[in-house]
């Protein structure tokens, strides 16, 4: 299985079959003219769609973020950086950024750590690992809305399974949804449940590509399993760890479905993406303010992506 964190930029030497004709490249021959139009006919629809619905919004957001504008209203006032000033000087910034940080760090750390443990279990030489691998991966492909509802029922303080288990050991179920701290804990737990299978499968692929000879040699030298794991497996898995760190970081920062369905008001769970949604489409219809928060989120995602590209170029090698 080939994994690439950042697909390499196309190598100059790698000429595709289409280029191998003997027609001189610079001349506007009948063939190259035909190719020009064939390319446009084939690629243009997709490229236009990407330009309009992926690239244009980035610029529109920057523009909207300079407006004091109620969504649906025909008029807007230009406020320059006013929305950013409001965000960073109000209580919103520490609250939203703090929630985002906690949610991201704990879900990334949790799903990677548990994913690694599950990968080790899946790497055992026993029957049934193929089935278990699929089972563990399954939540990752399921609807966040459906999954969120199922867990909301499990966490229900009155009639949920968890409340019943807690009663069994003599405790009252806490109010998971109304308590801002507990609601964040609840959403984090479900998010990790849903995403750890992805980490497990990627780690498993990493584990299975480790060189067996090195492991056997270390084993002969008397290194026990734990030692072999910490001094050989883990360092050799570092490209996989890095890949997962970036991918889970990016998707955690975009988590929406579970937060929306489990805590619609965002009590304690309002991350950047959710706050941007609430501001524009919740009660306030503050389009300009929402756009400003989206720009902040995009800036963070951009920094991560750039760091990743630079780091990958230098340090991480994929065969």
């Amino acid at each position, binding site marked *: 299985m*080939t994994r690439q964190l950042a*697909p390499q*930029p196309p190598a100059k030497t790698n000429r595709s*079959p*289409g280029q191998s004709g003997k027609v001189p490249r610079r001349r506007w021959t009948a063939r190259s003219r035909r*190719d020009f139009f064939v*390319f446009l006919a*084939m*690629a243009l*629809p*997709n490229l236009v*769609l*990407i330009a309009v*619905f*992926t690239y*244009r*919004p*980035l610029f*529109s*957001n920057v523009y909207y973020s300079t407006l004091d504008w109620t*969504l649906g209203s025909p008029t807007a006032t230009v406020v320059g950086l006013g929305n950013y000033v409001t965000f960073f000087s109000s209580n919103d910034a520490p609250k939203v950024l703090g929630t985002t940080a906690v949610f991201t760090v704990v879900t990334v750390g949790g799903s990677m750590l548990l994913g690694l*443990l599950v990968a*080790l*279990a899946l*790497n*055992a030489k*026993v029957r049934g690992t193929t*089935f*278990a*691998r*699929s*089972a*563990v*991966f399954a939540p990752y*492909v*399921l*609807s966040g*809305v*459906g*999954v969120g*509802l*199922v867990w909301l*029922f499990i966490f229900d303080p009155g*009639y949920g*399974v968890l409340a019943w288990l807690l009663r069994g050991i003599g405790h009252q179920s806490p109010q998971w949804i109304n308590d801002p701290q507990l609601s964040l804990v609840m959403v984090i737990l479900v998010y990790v*449940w849903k995403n750890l299978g*992805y980490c497990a499968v990627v780690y498993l*692929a990493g584990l299975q590509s480790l060189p067996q000879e090195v492991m056997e040699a270390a084993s002969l030298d008397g290194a026990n*399993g*734990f030692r072999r794991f*910490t001094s050989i497996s*883990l360092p050799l898995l570092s490209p996989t760890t890095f890949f997962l760190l970036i991918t889970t970081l990016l998707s955690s920062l*975009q988590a*929406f*479905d579970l937060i*929306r369905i489990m805590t619609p008001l965002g009590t304690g769970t309002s991350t950047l993406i959710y706050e941007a949604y609430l501001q524009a*489409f919740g009660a306030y219809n503050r*389009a300009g303010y929402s756009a400003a928060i989206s720009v902040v989120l*995009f800036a963070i*995602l951009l920094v991560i992506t750039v760091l990743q590209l630079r780091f990958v170029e230098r340090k991480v090698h994929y065969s």
Partner: protein
Amino acid sequence: MTSLSPVSPDPSTPAATPPESAPVRDRPLSRRNLAKTVAGGYLPLLIATLVVFLPLLWMVLSSFKQAGEIVTTDLKIFPESLNLENYRTAMTTVPFGQFFLNSTIVTLAGATIKVILAILTAYALVFVRFPFRNFIFLLILVALMVPPQVSILPNFILIAGMGGKNTLWGIILPGLGTAFGTFLLRQHFRTLPGSILESAEMDGAGHWRRLWQIVVPVSVPSIATVALVTIVTEWNDYIWPLIITDRPETMTLPVGLTLLQNSESNAAGWGVLMAGAVLVIVPILIVFAALQRYIVAGLTQGSVTG
């Protein structure tokens, strides 16, 4: 990370003997060996599988329970009968049949167009000469990194302005451009031997014929991967349909489930909500069970988003 233990969550296994490498020294079926295999090999697998399946099983069981079986302090694991009342209630409280139809249309139309666009773009990027071809590919790669969530407000304003609110095309259109599929197929097309295409070119086959008669038939597994991943993401897509629809006639299943959640907000409604969740989750679970190899490969292959 040095405190990591390679063992399973099972506390009875000592840290020094990780399951995957315990050397076999006893007779294969000795009791000690058997215990070791069970504790180190099967038990962690079993726990991991149960952690995934029990909540889903609970969903299915609860969807058959009457309100009286749910609103009770002593937990009943199995429903008294396979009662379909909750499904009927879910269907009549909100137009679930309509949601199902809408989701199917959106998923099939969206996925079909996306896969075709991805095939065409990837072919053009690999096999058709064009200036700045690599730069165009780079722009597609960057688009792969842009999360759809930060685009919802500008796209909402654009689509609503075009009259796409509460329409199926309004749901489908913004997601049609496909960076993911294009990227995956381009990487695959580049591995195809140039010789087969050159000989077809000699025979006078144009790009169109080369694409559909040679490139597509030999790329079926990759195309299937892209198609399945696209189907799964379209089916589960939530934030965009949630924003662009507010009337039940055009809602997709996940959005409709939110509507159901609002109208079944008391404890007695859990059974109905679980029935709704089953209707959303089970179709994808079936697709996944049948074709998981392609889906897992597609989703873990170097991309950030679907």
